[in-house]
């Protein structure tokens, strides 16, 4: 398959088609379709799902291929880690390849915790059942009374087929089954394997080692746009956990005036360069609450295309505040990109809150409940009490009931 010649430079300038119907238009130039992606309705960019459908809606339909999503972690890194796991699980379901880099724990720990997809159309390899022979008319007549035409077709799909839907739902109370996970390709980068933590080079080289490893994976596995088009292209999903923390050899989070303040920003610049020239998409989580320098956060945000920040209510006084009882935290959209166009798709509302339910991570506009003041209910209770005491035993007419 050959893509049009002038569109080789960047993924978002390719016009791509998702096979949702069996009808194929006859075109002279064959367009590539990659499972799990769809073109944006606004500007034709190739989008992938983040795994959270409401986050997809916030970002303008999905995450554009070739961009970075920055998630500023909440205090205990619970919900940002959850979104990272959703992102990786979506990659497994869509048959994309994954690249996970961590410094704190092994990447396998994150990969073991991926949530289980709620399957109705994700096919898993099951043993092939024999198609029913027409020599058993009684059973087949009982089995399918309406759709008798299809009774001779095999009942289950025998091969792993990628789902044609964009965006799936996950059940966070269960982890992904082993057989689904085995089908996916993972690339791991665990920092202590590459750079010893106590060496002098640790401070400087951890980011460049990560960049080099990522470039090797991109070039080796054929995600680079410069390589000639093979018959099938895939997307590489990159998940970088807790970048900028002290375990990456960076003292951004430890000091007010970090000694090497541009190491992370140079890395993000190189990451942007790598992503723009390949079919990959990255999600980076950053403990921004540890970084004192607001201006540095500003330049980090500018070097990433999408940026959101999470603030969870856990452990703060807002957890017991009745105003926020429906939600788990607040979500701020720091930046929305404008790629290949002048205007960006700004969100309608800026006051957003999120809630992690068992089967959905929902992001909604923060609605304050109506203000029912307590005097209203107290008067009604008192009136009832007064009526009761008047009819009942001789009370002194006081409104307070003694139990």
């Amino acid at each position: 398959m050959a893509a049009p010649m002038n569109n080789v430079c960047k993924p978002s300038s390719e016009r791509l088609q998702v096979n949702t119907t069996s009808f194929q238009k006859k075109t002279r130039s064959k367009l590539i379709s990659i499972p799990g992606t769809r073109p944006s309705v606004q500007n034709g960019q190739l989008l992938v799902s983040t795994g959270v459908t409401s986050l997809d809606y916030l970002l303008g339909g999905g995450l554009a291929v070739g961009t970075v999503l920055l998630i500023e972690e909440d205090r205990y890194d619970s919900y940002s880690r959850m979104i990272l796991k959703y992102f990786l699980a979506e990659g497994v379901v869509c048959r994309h390849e994954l690249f996970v880099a961590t410094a704190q724990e092994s990447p396998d720990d994150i990969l073991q915790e991926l949530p289980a997809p709620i399957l109705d159309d994700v096919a898993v390899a099951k043993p092939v059942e024999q198609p029913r022979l027409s020599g058993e008319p009684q059973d087949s007549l009982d089995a399918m009374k309406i759709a008798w035409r299809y009774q001779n077709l095999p009942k289950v799909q025998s091969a792993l087929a990628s789902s044609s839907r964009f965006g799936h739902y996950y059940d966070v109370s269960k982890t992904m089954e082993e057989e689904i996970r085995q089908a996916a390709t993972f690339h791991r980068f665990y920092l202590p394997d590459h750079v010893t933590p106590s060496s002098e080079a640790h401070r400087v080289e951890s980011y460049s080692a990560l960049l080099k490893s990522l470039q090797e994976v991109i070039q080796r596995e054929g995600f680079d746009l410069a390589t000639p088009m093979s018959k099938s292209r895939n997307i590489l999903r990159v998940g970088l956990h807790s970048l900028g923390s002290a375990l990456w050899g960076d003292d951004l989070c430890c000091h007010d005036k970090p000694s090497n303040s541009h190491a992370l920003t140079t890395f993000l610049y190189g990451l942007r360069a790598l992503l723009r020239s390949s079919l990959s998409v990255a999600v980076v989580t950053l403990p921004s609450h540890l970084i004192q320098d607001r201006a540095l956060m500003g330049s980090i945000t500018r070097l990433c295309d999408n940026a959101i920040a999470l603030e969870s209510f856990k452990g703060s006084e807002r957890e017991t505040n009745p105003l926020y009882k429906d939600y788990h935290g607040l979500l701020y959209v720091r930046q929305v990109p404008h790629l290949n166009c002048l205007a960006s798709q700004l969100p309608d509302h800026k006051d957003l809150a999120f809630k992690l339910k068992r089967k959905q991570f929902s992001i909604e506009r923060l609605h304050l409940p109506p203000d029912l003041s307590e005097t209203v209910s107290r008067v009604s209770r008192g009136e009832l009490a007064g009526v009761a005491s008047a009819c009942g035993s001789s009370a002194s007419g006081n409104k307070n009931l003694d139990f």
Partner: protein
Amino acid sequence: MFTELNSILNTSPDSFSRGEYILVSETNTDASFLIHHFLSFYLRSRCRVCFLGLAQSFCHYSAVGQRLGVSLTQAKEKGQLVFLEGLKESLSVLIQQENIPENEAMNFLRNPSVGLKSLYEFVYSSVMDSVCMEEGGEEWGPPVLLVDDLSVLLSLGVHVGAVLDFSHYCRAAVCSKLQGNMVMLVRCNAEEEEDEGDEGSKALLRGLTHQCSLNLHVHGLPTGYCKDIHGQMEVCWKRRQGDVPHLQTNLFQYKVHDKGASFFARGMSSAVL
């Protein structure tokens, strides 16, 4: 090219003042739409353009340029546009590879304390080429240098003094010597309370404002976020009439569309009226 902005600045592709240093500064907002405007403006007026696109890839600029009516790929082929794609060139420096030749201009990534001398030499050679080209080719207008954006250099570790030196050398070469124009984009985070956080970019902004002849300062609305009005733009001219420097300031609000931007006086947005 935004026609309303042309009328605000009293310029047109046929007649514009030469030797100008236009500084586009932004605070807490994104003013790169102005860079796209100036790029399409100078390409339309048949100037030789040297564009340092450090922030985004070439395809992004050419896609926006097509919406504004200029073709960057054609301009590059004809020799009108010299484009330095910072992202692509930086990879060969950041990840050392032996077999890929690297562009000298991005050498500062390897050791940011060295300064931007090689970047300046790249600019100088591409700008001087346009002047020395006598035979063949087409006659181009004065050379123009566009930089998007200078704050990326700061986040890559270059010192503020080196960026100011670079800007001064470019101004001396392009504006004074060759009577060309220069447009640079710089970003500043406005944090009034924390003075120690952002000294670098504030000092850079002050130094560049002193050097420039026209300052387009873009910032968000002071009252907060609005979907119909994307921000405010302050236009400051520094003109010399006789011996007296004359500072003239105008304030506009703007909204960025798909194919352009509209500018209006404060309070005159179509959403309000």
